[in-house]
């Protein structure tokens, strides 16, 4: 399977002692952005994965410890943020100006 599972929701069944989860939501103008494309870029800025945000604007990646860049692409605009991820849950927000 390479299709992304449903974004957001509970983390049932995900082992946070081994998985490095990077999740959060995309916001614009005080509201979550559904259907935004969020991509995860590695330390060299190379594409690693991409998901589409849920109706609540949520995204989730399963990465590895290290520095990553999140970039969102949506008709309302773009946002970008770097995250330093560790094993477990790493939460962040992408705000589109």
């Amino acid at each position, binding site marked *: 399977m*390479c299709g992304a599972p449903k974004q957001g929701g509970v983390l049932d069944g995900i082992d946070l002692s081994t998985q490095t989860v990077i999740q959060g939501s995309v916001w614009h103008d005080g509201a979550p952005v559904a259907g935004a494309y969020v*991509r995860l870029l590695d330390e060299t800025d190379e594409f690693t994965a*991409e998901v589409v945000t849920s109706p609540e604007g949520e995204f989730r990646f399963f990465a590895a410890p290290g520095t990553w860049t999140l970039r969102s692409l949506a*008709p309302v605009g773009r946002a970008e943020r770097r995250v330093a991820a560790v094993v477990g849950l790493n939460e962040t927000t992408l705000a589109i100006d």
Partner: protein
Amino acid sequence: MSRSDVLVTADWAQEHLGDPGLVFVEVDEDTSAYDGGHLEGAVKLDWRKDLQDPLRRDFVGREAFEQLLSARGISNDDTVVIYGGNNNWFAAYAYWYFKLYGHQSVKLVDGGRKKWELDGRPLSKDPVERPATQYKASEPDLSIRAFRDEVVASIGSKNLIDVRSPDEFTGKILAPAHLPQEMAQKGGHVPTAKNIPWSKTANEDGTFKSDEQLAALYDEQGYDDSLATIAYCRIGERSSHTWFVLRELLGKPDVKNYDGSWVEYGSLVGVPIEK
């Protein structure tokens, strides 16, 4: 073969929705994407349910493919125009699959669902029914499909192109990072494979880069035009995207997709792996 024979723009697709002789096909793993809105008149193929054998890890057989396309109302004479999510990964897989079974006229919509959505183009939730056909498939064209023994035998002698992300290539992660990282197979890559990620061939909106940019990319990465080529990824869909670039856009002569890919290779006993 040139770009216009195998690729249409979103504008072209929008202008030609509903044309006789054209069948638009959405291919996703996640069919909820189609159900939430699709190109007007497009039929759906489910990557897993429709295109994979329900028991073994393999394609559906020729007869099952004939039944599938007949039921979807696709004729041998139709031009099949495919698009999908995930930057057209599964659409490219279906393109390769249709070619494997000998369909003559197949095209991809450049940028797939992503560009369509980012452009704010119309989507329909109307059910699509097409009258059944009597589709006839050819025997599989194995000149475009590689199996594991050929991959092992090709180490050091063919262009082996690993199209996964750099972190998958090095074994830092085992799957694209939208999936949980718990897999049975070992991490790493086939020895002598070059890592030329599929993503280097596409723009951010999912469209393919220009022929000139693509040719320069493979030149820079040391692609040897005198050798045959096998592309692989994790399960064969991203490498279909690269197969499309190499064979259909750039016209390279001998290019195969290894759809067993890393899920198979990384689980084999006794084969060499580099990390």
